[in-house]
């Protein structure tokens, strides 16, 4: 069997992991908060895509135009109402708050949408094409990957070229100094959380056509997002992107050449090795958190 098959499917799946990881990393970088509700925000994105598709008959990829602003606003308000209350508190308080918010979201979804997994079946859900011989590439996964790349590029330019983006980075580098320079750091936190939420929801919507939609589906990805963030360096957007793809490829490769039973073992061995040899993560700044 071709070596290319697991490589390609790993990179494509890794793209979606990366998007989930980038959102979490951004929030950590700017606000220094570990967001344990990230997986549940992804789940909200899945349901938004599902209902846009079933009720409004909008293709899940096109529905991103709606999902991104809705989830940004949701995240922005969530920060304003809840998260900023604990921003100067010890980490355990922040963790408890985000876990609590996540539990409220997932259990509300269980009550509202029941635990029946929903399946979003588009005309291309199980279609694939064969670019090189017998290697098959999933159409929905490729579309998701391309959208992920586009969003990452837009985010990169937003962070490096716009004044809001620069203010976000300044807040991330040194919150107190940024405030002294006249940056409204409270507003930056809300924007960062809004973007983080929008990225999580986008990741959820992108995976919806190839996965199933369930109130607890986000939990699988929460752990992955954490691993990706730490692997790439907490707070590093590029690191999270690369980390996501590494995890996707390692999973696919270890399923192919060892056994899918072992793939989590391999992922966490690499994770531990990075923590031991490069505690700041692959792209993290030395001396950072």
């Amino acid at each position, binding site marked *: 069997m071709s070596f290319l098959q697991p490589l390609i499917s790993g990179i494509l799946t890794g793209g979606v992991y990366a998007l989930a990881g980038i959102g979490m990393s951004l929030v950590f970088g700017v606000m220094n908060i570990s967001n344990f509700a990230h997986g549940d925000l992804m789940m909200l994105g899945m349901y938004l895509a599902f209902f846009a598709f079933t009720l409004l008959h909008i293709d899940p990829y096109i529905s991103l135009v709606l999902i991104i602003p809705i989830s940004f606003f949701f995240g922005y308000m969530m920060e304003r109402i809840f998260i900023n209350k604990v921003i100067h508190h010890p980490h355990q308080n922040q963790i408890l708050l985000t876990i609590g918010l996540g539990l409220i979201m997932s259990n509300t979804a269980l009550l509202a949408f029941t635990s*029946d997994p929903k399946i979003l079946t588009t005309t291309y*859900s199980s279609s*694939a094409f064969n670019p090189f011989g017998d290697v*098959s590439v999933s159409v929905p996964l490729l579309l998701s990957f391309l959208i992920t790349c586009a969003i990452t590029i837009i985010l990169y330019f937003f962070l490096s070229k716009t004044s809001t983006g620069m203010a976000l980075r300044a807040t991330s580098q040194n919150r107190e100094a940024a405030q002294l320079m006249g940056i409204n750091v409270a507003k930056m936190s809300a924007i960062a959380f809004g973007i983080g939420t929008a990225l999580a929801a986008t990741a959820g919507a992108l995976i919806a056509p190839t996965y*199933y939609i369930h109130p607890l589906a986000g939990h699988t990805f929460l752990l992955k997002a954490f691993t990706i963030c730490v692997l790439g360096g907490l707070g590093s957007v590029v690191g999270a992107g690369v980390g996501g793809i590494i995890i996707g490829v390692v999973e696919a490769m270890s399923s192919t050449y060892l056994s*899918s039973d072992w793939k*989590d073992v391999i992922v966490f061995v690499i994770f531990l090795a990075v923590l031991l040899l490069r505690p700041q993560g692959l792209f993290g700044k030395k001396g950072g958190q």
Partner: protein
Amino acid sequence: MKNKFVSIVAAALLAFPMLAHAAPVKIGFINSITGKEAQIGENLTNGAAMAIEDLKAKGIQVELVKEDDGGDPKNALAAYEKLVTRDAVIGVVGPYTSGCANVVASRADQYQVPLLVPAAAKEEITMKGYKNVFRLNAPANVYSQVLMDAVKAFKPKTIAFVYAATDFGVSTVKTAQENAAKMGLQEVANEKYQQGQPDYRPSLSKVKAANPDLVFLVSYDADAILLMRQAKEIGLAPKAFLGAGAGYTTAQFAQQTEISSLVVSATQWTDDVNWPGAADFGRRYKAKYAKEPSYHAACAYEAMRIMVETASKAKTAPKLRADLKAGSWNGILGPVKFADYAGFTNQNNHPMLVQQIQNGKYETVYPAQFSKKALVYPFKR
């Protein structure tokens, strides 16, 4: 004042024996109402609720104490202990999953309260000689046995296994391997996977490269849809997909006609089988819940009916155990008798059915005496 108190006590004393006489029998029901297995759990909840209604209509009263295990063996055991110690039930129906049922079964003899397992398939549950554990459904080895019997006539040569790393998955495949060896099938791939992953393509590509005649799958719920989608995507097309239970037998799976068509699966029950009341149960269930009943619903219905009918006569746990052991029933799951055979104790030797999805509908195709349609072989897209 004192006289009044005495008269109340006297009245209470007089009333009490009558109350005790009329008091309904207390039965526990452990099920996966929340958690990963909640979708199938709902079928069990509905089936059991219908049984209770039918019994009430017949004048049999029961006090049902429901417990949720969330699909977690720890919770299932805690639920069983609570039911027998605090609620003082005389019999328990459940739990649903193999993992939960196996753990609870190991304690049933300690508490001496009969446990009737409605739908868990792991063989071990009734193989340890527990006196208080009864099982209504056929164990996991029958799933693979009946599936292979159904395709035997077409003389397949090779087989690949793809299954969830759960109690049910591992135990079903273990016996399937034995059955395959007996049939002279050569195993060409063996892929165990962790549930709930987004990407099964690497495992399925390995299976495709091995080019088996039969692909034997064990998956719960939505994983079945994911696997079949990705199988179509990478172009895996064996002569037959054999799905052992759970995820391949849900209405939701059948609706995905693009990927589910012609998939063969083993089931404990269908609504077109000629067991007394089966068709009627299917109709009433659909009318009441606006959903197709899965075999789990039928198993839970029948388990609850047998448990309550027997318990309402027996009144005590030891008598209930003796009556379950001695009795025999005939209902929507066919003839039921808890017997000791082939290493099993208190196991109902339930005949399983093989069904195939044809035009988006489950059709019984094997054994011949229960089926109207023939098996379509080989599989084609």
